[in-house]
């Protein structure tokens, strides 16, 4: 183990003069992204809190259905899509765009031009989400998973997206240096794929609707690719930036990164249909998606190996750096999430897990344990550089981490095990159907406990973020460590 004292906790400074120039430049770039990125984060935080409260509500109502059921816009069937869409479009997409724009500016080594246009875009995006949420609550949900927003909300989101991303791409146009870093591949890919994906899904479902079951195929194709090619790609790109940056060491292998990137683009974009296993579709579609899901083991293995080899010998840094701890947790969850995805997509297990809570566990592992944790990590890195203050309370960061980690772990475990019992009972015709529901109820209650943990975690983080936003962070040149650096020698807890 590398002794903690030898671990570079700050970016290594090359030489005094060159370092100064670089730091100045970085500060200038960070300052140019300050307003839009903080606005992204602030909006995302608000949506995160709303979505978290909704999640608790939805989780609780699933086992106590008579709670507030007499009001049309508080019925479970409307709150659930609101929760999902708030999380996907309000929280996840906004925090992803904020981080992506900051990373893009840093990596292109150019200032962000015309930040006000992006700010306008952010307003539009927020308005789009509000319109969509109101639409669902009023009973105008479209009924397609992850696309419940009425189509007119999608138009607003699209305008907002064009305003935001055109400038991020322009930044790329004005980049300095020839090297295109791994992170930039992922970000460019996400910027390009998302509008295509969103437009294709909207067109095939609402403008020129496809017939019958093809709507479901398009819907799941969209949902899965949104998770992988939009949110997942940005999360992986962020991890590729944060991990080497924090430990001050280059990525282990560019070749592995290339393989990982292209196989990710190729295979994960073909998944999705396994969520329709045994449904009324040509069998080849589902089989192709199952095969693609199995093949995602290649990007998972290469990306995982690459991160692991980069981290080799530096794992103790996780004891100190909040960014690294969250990011590594997310990167590891990417492996777990993908392996679970492979296991539950196989036909032999899908016959038990299809139509059960296990699919909810899968979504949460992807959206939370993998994506959201990496985004939390990036916020811990980026926000101090934007507000010029350091995080005030190490304890709050630790609480945030452990509540999130245990919360999402408990939720995944509950829903996977609950899904297994539920599915086994559904396939056992000697039991009535209602018994299969009864058998999963204890696990659903357990999930509510997990939702409580996550609520605590998010409110702690929001409070801390609010302190930073209002300039109440610590004034210091040293970043906030989770544990005092001098406390070396106690290596029992990495």
């Amino acid at each position, binding site marked *: 183990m590398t002794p903690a004292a030898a671990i570079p906790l700050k970016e290594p400074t090359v030489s005094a003069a060159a370092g100064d120039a670089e730091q100045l430049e970085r500060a200038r770039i960070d300052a140019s992204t300050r307003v839009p990125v903080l606005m992204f984060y602030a909006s995302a935080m608000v949506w995160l809190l709303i979505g978290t409260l909704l999640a608790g509500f939805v989780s609780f109502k*699933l*086992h106590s*259905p*008579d709670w507030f*059921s007499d*009001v049309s816009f508080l*019925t479970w*069937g*409307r709150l659930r*899509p609101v929760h999902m869409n708030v999380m996907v479009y309000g929280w996840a997409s906004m925090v992803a765009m904020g981080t992506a724009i900051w990373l893009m500016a840093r990596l292109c080594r150019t200032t962000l031009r015309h930040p006000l246009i992006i700010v306008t875009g952010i307003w539009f995006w927020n308005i789009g989400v509000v319109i969509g949420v109101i639409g*669902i609550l009023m*009973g105008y949900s*479209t*009924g397609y998973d992850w696309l419940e927003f009425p189509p007119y909300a999608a138009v607003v989101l699209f305008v907002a997206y064009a305003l935001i991303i055109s400038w991020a791409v322009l930044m790329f146009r004005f980049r300095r240096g020839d090297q*295109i870093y791994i992170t930039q*591949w992922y970000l*460019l*890919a996400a910027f*390009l*794929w998302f509008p*295509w994906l969103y437009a*294709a899904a909207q067109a*095939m479902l609402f403008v020129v609707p*496809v*017939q*019958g*079951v*093809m*709507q479901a*195929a*398009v819907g799941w*194709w969209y949902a899965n*690719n949104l998770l992988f090619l939009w949110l997942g790609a940005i999360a992986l790109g962020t991890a590729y930036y944060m991990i080497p940056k924090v430990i001050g060491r280059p990525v282990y292998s560019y070749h592995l990164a*290339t393989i990982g990137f*292209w196989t990710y*683009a*190729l295979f994960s*974009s*073909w998944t999705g*249909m396994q*969520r*329709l296993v*045994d*449904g*009324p*579709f*040509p069998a080849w579609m589902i089989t*192709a998606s199952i095969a693609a899901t199995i093949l995602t083991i290649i990007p998972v293995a290469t990306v995982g190996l690459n991160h692991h080899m980069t981290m080799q010998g530096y794992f103790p840094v996780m004891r100190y750096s909040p960014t690294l701890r969250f990011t590594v947790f997310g990167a590891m969850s990417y492996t777990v999430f993908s392996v679970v995805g492979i296991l539950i997509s196989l*036909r032999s297990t899908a*016959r038990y897990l299809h*139509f059960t809570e296990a699919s909810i566990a899968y979504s949460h592992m992807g959206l939370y344990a993998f994506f959201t944790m990496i985004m939390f990590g990036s916020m811990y890195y980026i926000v101090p550089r934007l507000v010029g203050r350091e995080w005030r309370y190490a304890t709050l960061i630790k609480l945030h981490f452990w509540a999130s980690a245990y919360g999402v772990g408990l939720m995944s475990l509950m829903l996977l095990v609950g899904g297994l019992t*539920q599915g086994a009972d*559904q*396939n056992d*015709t000697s039991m009535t*159907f*209602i018994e*299969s*529901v*009864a058998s999963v109820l204890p696990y659903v209650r357990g999930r509510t406990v997990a939702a409580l943990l996550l609520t605590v975690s998010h409110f702690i983080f929001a409070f801390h973020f609010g302190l930073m936003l209002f300039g109440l962070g610590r004034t210091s040149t040293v970043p906030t460590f989770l544990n005092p650096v001098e406390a070396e020698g106690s290596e029992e807890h990495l």
Partner: protein
Amino acid sequence: MKGLVPLFIGLFGTFAFSWVGLTVIPNWQIGALNPQTDEEGTDAYPTPKSGMADRGRQIYAANGCIYCHSQQIRPDYDSADIDRVRDAGPSPGPKWAERRSAPRDYIFDRPVVLGQERMGPDVANIGKAAPTEEEKPAAAPAANVAATSPAPAQSPPANVPPSKPGPPAPAASSAPAQPAPAQSPPPNASAPKPGTSGPPPAAPATSPAPPAGSPPAPPAAAANPSPGPSASPNPTGLPPAYSEAWHHRHLYSPRSMSPDNRDSTMPAYKFLYEKHPISGERSADALQLEGRDAPPPGWEIVPTYEAKCLVAYLMSLDQSHPLKEVKTAPGGAAPPAGSPPAAPTGSSAPAPPKK
């Protein structure tokens, strides 16, 4: 990585590959299916749903029914879907399905609501589970001279004072009316409806749509809701399982349906129902409720138009018609004469059943 051009070509290429492979090509294959017909070009299946049922699908999607109820039956080699029977109803309950679902079952559905989870049972064939004509008298043995009753059922009680929905004698006479509307002409089916909106004799025409609003599903017309309050033939006081009245009551108060339904996590959809003071006669489609759910005396609970659409949609869900591309379970009800074409009869019909 060197060079932007390969990067962008790669990004476009991988995504286009997925887009074409998973949406465009399947759309060529199953995106333009026609209904199946028999040799003579009749007996088309599926057929578009009625206006009410179509609206009902929107309500089904918008209120999130889709998150707990699937509408797809998996094949028998991979699941127990076909072997499963429904919980409610006379034992053995109606089967979930006779065959697996096929793309052709959904060609008129928009949005298509296949569902992804089963916190509630599959409803792909819930309309098929409705009591048929023969079962109705068994469920309502009080029927005696049914054929003549519809008219008296609505006119004499009109002058009954707005009393509690308890057991007044005239109301009991409406119970025998139950089996009748099946063979009675449509006016009888619609006549009791105006009670929802005003004095019964006043505005028969304002009734937006009778329960017979879903022509493709004949049981819908038969399942006139609300058996007489006192003469409830069923020992549990429930309407026959999966009838229209049953669905209304289930939507209004899911956990009141039977003792073994206490674990149901279905929310009540009370906001789809209205509470009225009873003016004149009790509405024919008022819900039969007991205990905690029952309205105060002099009041009644009636479905809104949306609730009626939703139930019309549920009653229209039926995938029992055999399809040529799918094997139907042996012993299954296969009444329509579509499948075994005994004599191809050289009629030069343009052979629509081709896909």
